């Protein structure tokens, strides 16, 4: 779920915008220009994925995959998520123009953490990859939901009800995302394990 324009108080809008800009600048510096097309690929895939709905009982939920983006891109993931959200807002009005900073923080910070954790813990066996991938993928979504609730709550105590609802609505999504991340990592491990290495350029030279 994205925060739309007009929800957050102006102080939070500006603050999260500045924080997002700083993180994005750092992310750009950490991105090799060799890797740009690949970051663009994950950005576009992130965009497409968020249009995929998974049935859940009588309704359906759409995927967020901040964790997977982090696993695939590492430090560049913040940039990918910021641009993915920008394009979603430009093309489909998911999220908003002024709330872009807040939305990018909400998805991008978990992505960065997930990338870091996955790289530290993944080990070398498929089993460990899958378990860590699942936990990280689910955890990323959980953290996103927590940040969403926190941001909504920044509007004052009047927003407590909405924040709680947003958090509860994400609980089933967190399970689904964990499982899907695990399956995706398992697939990539078997089919194209080099995608799981975050530094592409180092890989090309080798």
């Amino acid at each position, binding site marked *: 779920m*994205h925060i*739309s*324009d*007009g*929800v957050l108080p*102006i102080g939070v*809008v*500006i603050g999260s915008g500045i924080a997002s800009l700083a993180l*994005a600048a750092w992310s*750009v510096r950490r991105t090799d*220009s060799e890797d*740009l*097309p*690949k*970051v*663009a*690929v994950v*950005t*576009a*895939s992130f*965009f*497409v*994925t968020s*249009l*995929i709905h*998974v*049935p*859940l*009982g009588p309704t359906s939920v759409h*995927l967020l995959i901040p964790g*997977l983006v982090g696993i695939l891109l590492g430090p560049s993931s913040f940039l990918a998520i910021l*641009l993915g959200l*920008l*394009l979603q807002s*430009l*093309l*489909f*009005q*998911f999220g*908003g*123009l*002024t*709330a872009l900073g807040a939305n990018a923080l909400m998805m991008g910070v978990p992505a960065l953490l997930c990338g870091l954790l996955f790289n530290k813990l993944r080990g070398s066996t498929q089993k460990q990859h899958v378990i860590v991938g699942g936990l990280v993928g689910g955890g990323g979504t959980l953290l996103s939901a927590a940040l969403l609730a926190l941001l909504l709550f920044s509007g004052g*105590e*009047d*927003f*407590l*009800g*909405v924040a709680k609802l947003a958090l509860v609505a994400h609980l089933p999504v967190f399970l689904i995302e964990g*499982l*899907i*991340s*695990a*399956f995706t990592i*398992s*697939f*990539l491990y078997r*089919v*194209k394990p080099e*995608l799981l290495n975050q530094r592409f350029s180092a890989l090309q030279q080798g």
Partner: protein
Amino acid sequence: MVEGQIIQLPLVLLLAALLLLALLSLLAVKVLKSAFVGKQTAQKEPDWSVPVVDADAEGTSLFHRWDVRFKLVALLGFAFLVVATRSPEAAMIALLLSFSTVLVAQQPVYRSLKRLLAMSGFLGMFLLVMPLTVVTHPEDILLVFSGLEFLPFNLRGLQLALAIVGKACAVALLMEPLLATASLARTVEGLTRLGVPEKVAQMILLAHRYIFVFLEEARRMKTGMQVRGFKPRTSTETLQVMGNFLGMLFVRSFERTHRVYAAMQSRGYRGRFPAPFYFKVTAGDWLHAGVWLLLGIGLLVFDRLGAA
């Protein structure tokens, strides 16, 4: 704990109001549906692999002639000033102003409506939840329906929600005039001249291309899955299939991009597309931008003074 000014109402009134709302939304859905169906049969199956964000880039309206850099700064500034307001009245004025831009920029209204529809779920949640969950202040007016004493309906919550909806819609209506009145390449070039790094600009253009390619790819893969008898359900198997689907999408996308990038480099791509854009600033650009920023500031002043 409830201490606001309570207005007792019979339950029948609530039922009548709900019925009226249901009828109205049913009518709205019907009208919108007929409008959309009319549009869709006119152009048959749309080709999803072709980007559409700047479909109406050719035109002669005030917004088409406006220098993109001024347009970006002025309308973004206006958007931030709009979200800084608090009262529903200011939000409604902003909504009217934004709607007028859609007309002045000669943009098809149904595309702007589509944008509003995309937000309806999120905003609907606010309209529904805020009146029931806001903290009760002594000066609040509460509607309490007999039989539902535990669920007071706070009018201040409704006001808050209406302000949010108004602001969100106002900014959303600015999007088409902001983006669709110049080609995306030109808008992005304007962004670079405003200081956005070249790398980021290239990424926007590349990702925007790839999105439509991948959407088409995902659609093809989905058709393949359906032909093989896949039906999504709430089950682990579905999730496994979706996981593999995502993995396959990543693998295919990477391989395709690898080939495309090699081809681009062999044709002389050095990290930027040649962009033969010529920018010329006129007094009208300054004037137009100034008007929008002043409108935004005026709105904010009205909002803060009116509230006091």
